[in-house]
């Protein structure tokens, strides 16, 4: 076992583990976990978060641990490399990596194991790589720490690594800092640093979260490669489609317990446990259009609230229309960039217009212009046929009630000093509800519409769950009985089952209240699930527009094709 731990200084170090692995594969599994429990001690009390977890991982295989936030999947991963965190209490019957008993490894030896035998990939390289250092040095550090080669050797190796993870022009990239790289390159660099020494075990914790679909596909492909080369992968994810893509076997975790485990396709095709089924059903996409994602029934919207639908029944024509919007921004260094370039769209009453695009495609800016929070440099927006973006705020105010917004992160859109009641009362316009009792009545009505109980009123958003917060945000958006609701990545931050509930809610609300949605998301699945018409944006330009089903089944523009393809690759398999 010491033999394993002595860092191998020979330049061929990267080759040897491969041979060894062939040996091991036949024999005992590379990673073997029996009865792993992890808890955190606070004020003397140990609060368990992982219960009696057991699995074996043969070399060259991938096990996925699936679960929603708080299921304990991340802690499990960290526990496997002895970094479960402050005050962590770990116990295990058996915890072995190859022939090393991980339960008996002192800190010094851990260092030799981490990065050398176990590579760990975290989500979001923007924060997972030191923002102050060039990525090259981060990767080189991994080599240096394990005494790999000489300085020049390491430099060459870094370039090779970057190249091997598909980073173009490694020489340049190595000298850049994470902030200067695109999300995709960044994530690749991170992977390069984690896999620098070609570890036999790869722990990937949400490696694709917060990445654009196209990048996701590439990253997963990378991991797949390593797997084929014989590395074992523990994949942590909440995203079943990702799992489906890579995993040989799946562990479904809930509340620290494994509720179901088995071969990937087994579990994903016909799940036995009710929770797994829910998760699977909750994934939105082409198949789910028009059906409910969540088993629990959405709230029944009181018909009394339906009046807002009628209020503008008389009018026809689009509720929201944008013509050739252009918006430029000036960067601190003085360079100008065009965020939105000639975007036009019509949002018809009672329908949903989805805008899909990757980060930086200008979709959010478009939304802000639609909300008249940003004024376009050129072009115009009209709301309910009346001038909107062109007129001064004072004249807009009267119309503000007709259009409202729900953000990705509701918390930051709530004044931290206000509790739910104050937030909602503030949103209920005094002109329709002059006296206090009527206003409170309206607030209760709103809660009912979004399926919340009165008990949330005194609570502060901080203390609410993500789903509840988003419901409060929606309730606030509905308060003024708007005809247009702008949903800017409104469900992107939510766990899949919660997301399902919110999506269902939105569908019902639209039907009952005759709302029109401007729905912005980077997630094709969600867009597909909800939208009637779709706008595909790239670099501030609309590259394709049209009927949702048509676009997502028969895309024309190459970019759209690429998007859809990457989505497919994730879904099938």
């Amino acid at each position: 076992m010491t033999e394993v731990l002595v860092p191998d200084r020979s330049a061929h170090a990267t080759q040897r583990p491969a041979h060894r692995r062939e040996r091991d594969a036949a024999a005992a599994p590379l990673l073997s976990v029996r009865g792993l429990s992890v808890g955190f001690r606070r004020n003397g009390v140990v609060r368990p978060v992982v219960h009696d977890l057991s699995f074996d991982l043969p070399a060259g295989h991938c096990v996925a641990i699936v679960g929603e936030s708080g299921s304990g999947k991340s802690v499990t991963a960290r526990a496997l490399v002895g970094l479960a965190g402050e005050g962590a209490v770990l116990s295990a019957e058996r915890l072995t990596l190859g022939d090393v008993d991980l339960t008996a490894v002192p800190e010094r030896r851990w260092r030799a194991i981490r990065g050398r035998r176990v590579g760990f990939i975290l989500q979001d390289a923007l924060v997972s790589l030191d923002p102050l250092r060039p990525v090259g040095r981060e990767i080189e550090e991994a080599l240096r720490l394990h005494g790999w080669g000489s300085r020049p050797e390491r430099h060459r190796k870094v370039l090779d690594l970057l190249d091997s993870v598909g980073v173009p022009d490694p020489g340049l990239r190595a000298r850049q800092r994470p902030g200067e790289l695109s999300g995709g390159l960044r994530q690749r660099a991170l992977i390069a640093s984690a896999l620098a020494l070609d570890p036999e075990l790869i722990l990937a914790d949400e490696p694709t979260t917060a990445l654009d679909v196209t990048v996701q596909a590439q990253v997963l492909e990378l991991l797949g490669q390593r797997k084929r080369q014989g590395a074992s992968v523990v994949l942590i994810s909440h995203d079943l489609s990702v799992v489906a893509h890579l995993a040989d076997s799946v562990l479904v975790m809930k509340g620290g317990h494994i509720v179901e485990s088995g071969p990937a396709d087994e579990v994903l095709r016909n799940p036995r446990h009710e929770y797994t089924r829910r998760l699977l059903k909750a994934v939105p996409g082409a198949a789910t259009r028009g059906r409910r994602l969540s088993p629990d029934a959405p709230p029944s919207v009181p018909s009394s609230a339906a009046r807002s639908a009628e209020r503008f029944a008389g009018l026809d024509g689009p509720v929201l229309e944008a013509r050739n919007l252009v918006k430029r921004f000036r960067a601190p260094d003085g360079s100008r960039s065009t965020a939105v370039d000639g975007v036009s769209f019509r949002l018809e009453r009672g329908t949903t217009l989805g805008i899909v695009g990757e980060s930086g495609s200008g979709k959010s800016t478009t939304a802000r212009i639609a909300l008249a929070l940003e004024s376009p440099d050129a072009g115009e927006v009209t709301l309910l046929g009346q001038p909107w973006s062109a007129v001064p705020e004072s004249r807009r105010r009267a119309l503000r009630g007709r259009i409202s917004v729900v953000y990705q992160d509701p918390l930051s859109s709530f004044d931290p000093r206000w509790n739910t009641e104050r937030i909602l009362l503030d949103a209920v316009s005094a002109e329709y509800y002059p006296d206090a009792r009527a206003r409170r009545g309206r607030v209760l009505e709103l809660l009912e519409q979004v399926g919340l109980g009165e008990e949330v009123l005194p609570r502060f958003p901080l203390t609410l769950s993500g789903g509840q917060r988003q419901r409060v945000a929606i309730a606030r958006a509905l308060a003024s009985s708007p005809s247009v609701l702008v949903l800017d990545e409104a469900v992107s931050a939510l766990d899949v089952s919660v997301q399902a509930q919110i999506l269902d809610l939105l569908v019902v609300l639209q039907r009952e209240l005759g709302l029109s949605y401007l729905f912005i998301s980077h997630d094709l699945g969600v867009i597909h699930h909800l939208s009637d018409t779709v706008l595909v944006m790239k670099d501030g330009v609309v590259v394709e527009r049209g009927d949702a089903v048509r676009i997502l089944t028969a895309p024309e523009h190459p970019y759209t094709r690429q998007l859809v393809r990457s989505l497919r690759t994730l879904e099938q398999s």
Partner: protein
Amino acid sequence: MTILDRRPRFARTAPGGGTPTRRGPRRSPRPAPDLVAAVLVLVFFAVALAAPSALAPRDPFALDLVNALRPPSAEHWFGTDESGRDLYTRIVHGARQSLLIGVGATVLSLAIALVLGSLAALAGRFVAGTVNRVVEVLFAFPTLLLALLLVAVLGPSAWTQVVAVGVGTAPGYARMIRGQILSARNSGYVEAAVALGHPRGWILRTHVLPNAIRPLVAVFALSVGQSIVWASSLSFLGLGVAPPAPEWGALLDAGKIYVTQAWWLTVLPGLVIVLLALATTTIGKHIQSALEKGEK
């Protein structure tokens, strides 16, 4: 199964522990001992402020020439000064003046800062720019120099100390408030309020200012202690309240020539000042971290 408690190792590997969303160390729900200690200290001084005689029945001015320069003892807990006055009594009775100076200075300072800071953040380009410059200039003045000048103009007195320290420390707070207001103004909830169609003035009143001013609660606590230190520095330079008033800095100043023979005259008053500064700072920090948790 065999339970192997690995706590020590994991405790040692704490740095890896945090998750990205966590800001700084979590605090235990039970009141931290340092907080308790700090509160106790403050309570003591609060009593000293309200009813000094309750803690020290003696007359802080009474001469006792026979017992001059007695070291601390059961009879005189903190010893006596060159005229045989009881130091403990004087310190307790000095609390009122010292604390009021500290609080007064802080209030004044924050008031000034609030005006300047709001202007700098909210006023028109020209006014804001000018105010910024003014703050900048004031900031370039070492607090003590400002104080020296003010004392020279107004003559030394408790009131002067309040003004000197208040004005001297205001610019920094002004900057802070400006920063707070700006960040509040760029916040999501302000945008949300705009989207709801609230008028600008209303948003300023109901969202921006309240949220900007919130941290001042903490700053206030933090600042009182520091103001006392500053004020006492003035007294120490002989520019404070007139002796024989038992203001702490003045005590220290009077005691310093006896330092080699009667250490207590210098050490103890200083200790008291430090203790108080410590207490207020501690409480301030706790409020601050409570607020941060509230905002995160």
